């Protein structure tokens, strides 16, 4: 077990945390950026910038190298078999849309089924709903346990031979619970379906090995893992990506274009139409190196420690309801809760006045809110750079809320 002071020093790498006297507990929405990432983006634009993959001159080759090195590192980071299995996108949302439009558009037919878990963020729900409407396929909800898990049994309960794809998140951005994707992928594959995993909340916080998990696609965002906004990635198994039609068309994704004849580029460039975000990719690579230097064992330990502290503290406060599992081990740094009688937006405003940033609302998961029978909730989400003191400050503020709003104790 690490001493807390081991990770404390990393906090100093985050300029924003020094700039603001704020307990930033909204890391599931986006994380802050360390100096090393900001430096890498700056270095790219100061010393390496040209349009990658286009120019003949040396500088363009340098830019291309930075971009492709970032791809190779990203592939290694999630244990993809080869760099070509990583498509750079803007964010997880774009990655999910890419698969829904390209793979879904080409492979879904009337009568086919796509299973979408009730946990999904709108970004892993609406693209499937849209493609289902276009192709005549049907989308079917996979229920979750009260703890927020999609189990093999629950998946099996809706799995039919017509199922072509299963869309499920690795970690729910509301419940914080981790799904056993390895088992779910096996069950999906046995039925002849593919598995599209949403890694937006898992890849930043735990070691992910796509080959070991056996998932067919995985989407994630750079900005939730210390990288700049505007860079994200899609992992897809090479043979699947090879067979898929382009998503967007235009420059940089072709081999030959004549008026009457077009040959698209090979993957991954086939899916990266237009000028790419090389500066963002440089930032993502720096973020990955930064996370690797700390190590996910230490990151997970610290996030679990903070989660534990927060949940134990919340349980002591009258009128607090924690959503999902009562066990801190079941929460990957995400604690969603409600304060009895007090609207979540009022909770967030009061915490904001006390210098604490949390999220309040439906967390882009309205079908899950319906399932849970709530309109909106409050969510605190931790990163390794958060401290025990910040959690204490959060708990002290939450403890006052009901009184402040006129509800005794």
């Amino acid at each position, binding site marked *: 077990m690490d001493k807390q002071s081991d990770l404390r020093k990393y906090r100093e790498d985050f300029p924003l945390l020094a700039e603001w006297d704020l307990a930033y507990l909204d890391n599931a929405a986006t994380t802050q950026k360390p100096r090393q990432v900001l430096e890498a983006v700056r270095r790219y634009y100061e010393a390496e910038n040209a349009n990658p993959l286009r120019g003949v001159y040396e500088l363009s080759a340098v830019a291309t190298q930075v971009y492709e090195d970032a791809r190779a590192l990203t592939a290694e980071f999630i244990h993809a078999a080869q760099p070509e299995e990583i498509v750079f996108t803007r964010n997880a949302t774009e990655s999910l849309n890419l698969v829904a439009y390209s793979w879904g558009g080409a492979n879904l037919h009337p009568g086919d089924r796509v299973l979408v878990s009730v946990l999904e963020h709108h970004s892993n729900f609406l693209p499937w709903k849209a493609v289902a409407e276009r192709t005549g396929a049907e989308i079917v909800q996979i229920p979750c346990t009260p703890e927020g898990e999609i189990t093999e049994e629950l998946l099996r309960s809706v799995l039919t031979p017509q199922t072509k794809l299963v869309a499920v998140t690795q970690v729910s951005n509301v419940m914080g619970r981790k799904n056993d994707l390895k088992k779910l992928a096996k069950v999906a594959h046995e039925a002849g379906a593919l598995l599209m995993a949403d890694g937006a909340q898992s890849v930043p916080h735990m070691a992910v090995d796509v080959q070991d998990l056996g998932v067919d696609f995985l989407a994630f965002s750079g900005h939730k893992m210390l990288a700049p906004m505007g860079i994200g990635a899609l992992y897809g198994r090479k043979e699947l990506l090879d067979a898929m039609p382009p998503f967007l068309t235009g420059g940089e994704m072709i081999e030959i274009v004549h008026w009457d004849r077009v040959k698209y580029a090979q993957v991954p460039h086939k899916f990266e139409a237009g000028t790419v975000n090389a500066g963002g990719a440089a930032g993502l690579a720096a973020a990955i190196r930064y996370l690797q230097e700390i190590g996910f064992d230490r990151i997970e330990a610290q996030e679990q420690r903070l989660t534990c502290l927060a949940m134990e503290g919340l349980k002591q406060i009258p009128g607090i309801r924690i959503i999902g599992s009562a066990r801190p081990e079941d929460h990957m740094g995400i604690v969603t809760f409600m304060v009895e009688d007090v609207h979540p*937006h*009022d909770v967030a*405003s009061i915490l904001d*006045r006390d*210098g604490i940033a949390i999220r309040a*609302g439906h967390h882009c998961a309205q079908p899950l809110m319906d399932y849970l029978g709530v309109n*909106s909730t409050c969510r605190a989400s931790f990163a390794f750079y958060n401290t025990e003191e910040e959690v204490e400050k959060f708990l002290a503020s939450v403890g006052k809320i009901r009184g402040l*709003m006129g*509800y005794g104790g």
Partner: protein
Amino acid sequence: MADKTFYNEVLTDHNMHPLHKHALECPDLVMEGVNPSCGDEISLQLKVEDGVIRDGSFVGEGCAISQASADIMLDMVIGKTVEEARELSGIFLRMIQGQATPEELERLEEAGALEDISHMPARVKCAVLGWHTLDEALGKA
């Protein structure tokens, strides 16, 4: 940490014990207002005769700011002419934008308790929901 005035007693009181949160019998005007960001919803109900707001109420759900603000608003506009109510609404919106004069603020009575919301951009929509709905309702009068 110091400044907590925007969740003050006036606001929490109107939130917990709203005087006007009930349905009206045979209202002349009914107008729905929603604020999707907080999920606030109100249905404003008014009785208007000879250009005067004789009675008013609201039903709905939402955050404390939206509900208290609607209740305070009804306290103020019941008995006033439509014209006066529109004027108060204009002053309230100016207050929330931090542009009301001291004389104007005085006319807002209890609604002045919400002045601090002008520093909470994310919550402005909650505070003005009732007033916007009133404007819309009176636009039809």
